[in-house]
């Protein structure tokens, strides 16, 4: 059973809180404390908007342990509007086909549970943007 490793990432996973470099203003996700752009210390928190687009995607048929109940599901590389790329599942696609460049928005969903009795792990996924 895992607990602390998921707990410590809650802010990032629930709400897409990353970092911004105080030196060059490069936005960083996942957080890595050293700016990948200029190499300076970057630990200032930054709230990402959650908007982005699909960079690539595929459908997982053969899921690893803990994800069987969700298969088949779509994983994607998402390019956030602030610049960084991340790996996440697409959700709530309905019958809509996915395409590269499709605009998506972040939602917080259940990623998996840590076994039958373990904790529920929540985190970011992306869905087609809802008109508003």
């Amino acid at each position, binding site marked *: 059973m895992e607990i602390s490793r998921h707990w410590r990432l*809650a*802010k990032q996973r*629930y*709400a897409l809180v990353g970092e911004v470099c105080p030196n060059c203003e490069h936005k960083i996700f996942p957080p890595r404390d050293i700016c990948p752009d200029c190499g300076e210390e970057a630990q200032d928190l930054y*709230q990402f908007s959650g908007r982005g687009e699909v960079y690539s995607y595929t459908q997982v048929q053969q899921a690893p342990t803990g994800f*069987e*109940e*969700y298969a088949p599901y779509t994983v994607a590389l998402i390019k956030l509007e602030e610049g960084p790329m991340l790996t996440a*599942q697409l*959700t*709530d696609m*309905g*019958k809509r086909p996915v395409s590269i460049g499709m605009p998506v928005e972040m*939602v*917080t*969903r*259940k*990623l998996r549970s840590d076994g*039958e009795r373990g*904790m*529920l792990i*929540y985190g970011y*996924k992306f869905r087609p943007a*809802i*008109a*508003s």
Partner: protein
Amino acid sequence: MPEDKLLRPNRDVGIIGYGAYIPRYRLPASEVARIWKGENFKGPPGEKAVAGLDEDVITMSIEASRNALARAAIDPTEIRAVWVGSESHPYAVKPTSTVVAEAIGAVPNTLAADWQFACKAGTEAMQAAIGFVGSGMAEVALSVGMDKAQGRPGGALEYTAGAGGAAYLIGTADRSLVTIEASYSFTTDTPDFFRRANEKYPEHGERFTGEPAYFKHVTAAADEIMQSSGLKAEDFAFAVFHQPNAKFPTRVARSLGFIPEQLKPGLLVPMIGNTYAGSALVGLTAILDIARPDERILMVSYGSGAGSDSFIFKTTENLIHRRELAPATLEYISRRTEIDYATYARYRGKLVSK
């Protein structure tokens, strides 16, 4: 004790932000009938909203709360209480509200708690938030009513037990989109519907859920708040009641003197089913999405067990432009993917795979 029985805060409060959430999957009632009554049985009309595989009361509450925050346009650290009412909290022990509070950034100076009172757990949280802000203990409190309701396969509840709900940020009246003019609660010990600990599906008293339960409590709560406020049905632009089906709220509205036009905008049950703790509250978001300034709204919830909370709201000018800052209730309703019973059984965890 004053002459009337209304609950009176020390200062005027209101709704400073609201947000709905309804999952995208829909199961028509006719599809449930097809499985359990036979191919040729003409099922009841309507359909219900079904949560996706990765959704539960925590995730749905987070989205509704984010919508409320977007409309309130406040810093989430202003929120001093996060209260989620539901009868389908994902954990038996471990608050839904802590996850919601963390996700929306309302930590750590927060009183977080989960509420449980069948279908009125959400309005109960709202009632408490009125007190919390009204007493001056807090400037902003979040109350959520959200459910992913259970219905035994083949049982009467399965046709309507839906998923969804709404979140309300309660603050002082001066910054409100909607002011709260009055509130009241009415409770007795009435075992019309319950779920014992560790049981998957609830039990209900069939016709006993009607007269001595729903109608008695809703009518009493509505009568008291209207009379004490000196208001009649025609003084309201809208009324919204707990809606386990279309029949109960329609009948109680008529008996209280409301006409169908007042009821219709908040009557979502034919489209999304009974969202339990979210039922009256998500009806209210649909009304707020279309109301004009200075309109009065009556809301009466009902929770089995049993009790009703009643509220009188009055819209303000602020509502008109702020409501554009998050998706409208009908946008969620129109985001619709129909599923069959097999998919529903899978999404609701009714397939035994381990």
